[in-house]
């Protein structure tokens, strides 16, 4: 039962983020795109935080975030986007989808760890 789901089509990012979170005592699961992320979330309702890329094949991260609310009806899970995107329009779309926050890559674990731990507590 994972606390955090990391959703990114890049194995490098999944490794980087996952290794950091695990080294800091967190349980992590992984998905390779938005469609896979929805499947994993449905299968593991214990997940409290999703760290999700935007630009992914099959289903992008913002669409996934919208479907988490509309199709899974999961208002409880926190979603934070981890992406190269920095456009105000995308952030607005994310806010409308109920996401909790936005990180522009590259990932800096120390800057976000305390907040991540609070969100899964």
């Amino acid at each position, binding site marked *: 039962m994972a606390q955090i789901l990391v959703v990114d089509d890049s194995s*490098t990012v999944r490794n980087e983020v996952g290794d950091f979170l695990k080294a800091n005592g967190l349980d992590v699961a992984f998905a390779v795109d938005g469609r896979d992320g929805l499947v994993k979330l449905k299968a593991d309702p214990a997940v409290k935080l999703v760290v999700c890329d935007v630009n992914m094949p099959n289903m992008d991260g913002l669409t996934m975030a919208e479907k988490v609310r509309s199709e899974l009806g999961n208002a409880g899970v926190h979603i934070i986007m981890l992406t190269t995107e920095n456009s105000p329009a995308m952030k607005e779309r994310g806010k409308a989808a109920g996401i*909790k926050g936005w990180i522009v890559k590259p990932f800096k674990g120390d800057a976000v760890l305390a907040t991540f731990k609070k969100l899964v507590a």
Partner: protein
Amino acid sequence: MRNDNDLVSKVLVLDSDPASYEKIKAFCEENNLVGLKVQPDNVMSVLRSNVDLGGILLSENYDGRAQGGIQLAQRINAIRSELPIFMRREGTASLDDLSPMECKCISAAYTLDDMRGLQDSIAEYIFSLSYPNVLVRGIAEITKAALESQFKGLQVDVAAPYIVRDRLIYGEIFTLIPIESSWCRGYMMLQTEEIALLELVKAERTHMSALEGFDFRNLNGVLGEVTNLVWGAFKNRYMSNAARSAHLSQVPIIINHLHRYISFGSDNPQLCFKYTLDDSAQEPARKLDIFQKFVFNLNWAPEDFTENLISVQDLVESGELDLF
């Protein structure tokens, strides 16, 4: 078009006359050309190994043989027709006395007495596109930062950017991503060697484990994420959201694996950056060269180039969490 910025281009200098050579060397220095001198016996092997050339300066009587240069031009043109050949002739800067087959292989001729013609030809064939200085510097800055985030504890050196007319692919791993904005349309490529990259993965210089590195798909992912980071930063800084024409053209990209050749359907030169990642602190020392190439084959309008203005409210440092 004059090359008013710091861009250079590598040219092979095939000229065996010592007196001419000094003048050509001075010309190269004054015109942002990096001359590579080659022994006659090594010309074809050097051409096979150098994949990022801008052109060739070749003397008509190369290797002391009358018309030796013309014959060599035909051989070079057969394998590297993208490379413009500028021929030094005695007494005439015209190609009118040559046969059509010979003319086809030579872009322009010049004499030592008047190098202005060569200067114009270099501008036409090599430095035919103008790149805003702030863009060139920004690309190097963005990419260096992306590499430093993905390769742990390595020195990243950026060579002076240069213009390439070649169409050859460097190495075995190659990423390609569209670049689309109101002022430019084309592609960015990153190219590197698999074995050198694997060595850095094995040395745990990336976010990939040494074991995972043995699956080439994971190695692909390392270069893929660098590409993603560079593209994202480029998009944030330079791509506008201005409405673009709905009728966007496309042309096929053609790759010939046997010849390690890629074509974007145009004669446009490529803007090239070379990054060297140095792990000399380790024994044995490891080094990785990554070539980054931009080809704006679909649209290039540098007069419309702008940097995106970022308001203070929008300015969140990368890696920091912007909580809503």
